[in-house]
């Protein structure tokens, strides 16, 4: 059996007095597509933000490819990870945000090229070619010299995905990537994610409210409720056949 690429071991997270995550155990396997669903405020986003090193867990361990993300060995003792340690691991992880977070002072091509060139030190010509290919793949080949302000929300989000993909991550995180979009633009973004899910062999974790979409692409669905994984299984187990009343109550809000 293959080994998980990411392991959460009894991970807790508090913001001040409020405990948002109350012990998360989760394995993510290479190429696995996981959807996290649940009511807002249940801590879904926090789970992936900790993996992206945007939030530090209050307790517990996150192991990435056998290495402890938030702790490192120093003089024989485990201490809090420094930036160098975090950077040595998080290069394998990419993330797409709810609000796109494109760099407004760069063209969309430059948005894709800056990190491979400046962070990984890759060859500029090669990166340019790869970026253009990636932007063509998300359907924006004719806009590469435009600035983000000239694009629609759906286009911006597709650029954000291209930008993350150019870094060739092993794990891609999607944080409610369609929530900030006008309804008519959601489809084009989901289409791109579906394409990535079918054709790329990286692991994907999606925090989403798109149930049909989760049902379609996810190998595993987690239902998060009140800081714990309340239900876990295949998409049809959780979304179609769950007997958990909390899950049913949650899902009923989507079926009207």
């Amino acid at each position, binding site marked *: 059996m293959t080994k998980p690429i990411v392991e959460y071991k009894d991970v807790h997270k508090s913001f001040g007095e409020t405990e948002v995550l109350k012990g998360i155990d989760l394995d993510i396997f290479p190429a696995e597509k996981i959807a996290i669903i649940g009511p807002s405020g249940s801590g879904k986003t926090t789970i992936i933000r900790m993996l992206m090193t*945007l939030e530090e867990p209050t307790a517990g361990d996150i192991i990435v490819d056998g290495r402890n993300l938030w702790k490192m060995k120093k003089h024989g003792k485990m201490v809090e990870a420094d930036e160098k340690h975090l950077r040595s691991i998080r290069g394998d992880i990419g993330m797409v*945000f709810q609000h796109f977070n494109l760099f*407004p002072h760069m063209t969309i091509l430059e948005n894709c090229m*800056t*990190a491979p060139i*400046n*962070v990984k030190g890759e060859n500029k010509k090669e990166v340019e070619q790869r970026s253009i290919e990636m932007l063509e793949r998300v359907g924006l080949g004719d806009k590469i010299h435009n600035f983000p302000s000239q694009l629609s929300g759906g286009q911006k989000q597709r650029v954000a995905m291209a930008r*993350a993909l150019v870094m060739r991550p092993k794990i891609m995180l999607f944080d409610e990537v369609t929530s900030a979009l006008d309804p008519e633009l959601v489809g084009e973004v989901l289409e791109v994610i579906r394409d990535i899910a079918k054709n790329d062999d990286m692991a994907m974790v999606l925090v989403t409210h798109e149930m049909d979409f989760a049902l379609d692409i996810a190998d595993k669905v987690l239902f998060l409720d009140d800081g714990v994984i309340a239900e876990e299984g295949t998409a049809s187990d959780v979304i179609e056949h769950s007997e958990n009343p909390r899950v049913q109550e949650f899902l009923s809000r989507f079926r009207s």
Partner: protein
Amino acid sequence: MEAILNISQELGRGLWVTISILIASALLAYLIGFIAGLSRLSKNIFIQKFTGLYIEIFRGTSLIVQLFWLYYAIPMLFGINLGSNWVIGVIAIGLNYGAYLSEVVRGSVEAVDSGQTEAAVALNMSSYQKMRYIILPQAVRMMLPEFGNYTIQMLKGTALVSLISLSDILYYGNILRSSNLSQAPLIYLVVLGFYFILALPLIFLTRKAEDVSKKGVAN
């Protein structure tokens, strides 16, 4: 009319001192503004507090008193010569406005949307790379109009150096007046005209800067 021409000719002798002090002290103030502004954001508590102290002292006391300190007090107290009057004028104006500008720098960096930092982290940038490629290019756009405003103020502030016997525009105006009291209103009117004409290109640049800063920034 002829009187105005004569006055202008006399005032023109101080033009270069005013301009050279403006340019030198503006460059010094920009440099200090950036160094102190970024130090203020440092994680190192000592650096942070130290720059905070500098900023509050120089913002909180008057420029003219600071000028006199550098010119009269410090050489007497410590026996050090800070250089020519020109250098002292530049240092005083540079330190004073550097303190203001550092707050502009700090504010602009903090005003860049936090999502930009998160995107930089997600692309595995180091703190330096994040600053260099993502935060500063956007923060500088936001700073431009304020830098323009403070540069115009600095131009007007240079008039104070006439008080440490530097022969700038105002200095020659004062000399003219002392030998020709009845012309005082006209003399100072022409002095005002001189400063206004010098400020015009700066006002124009500041307007341009406002246009630039409206583009290409996330917030």
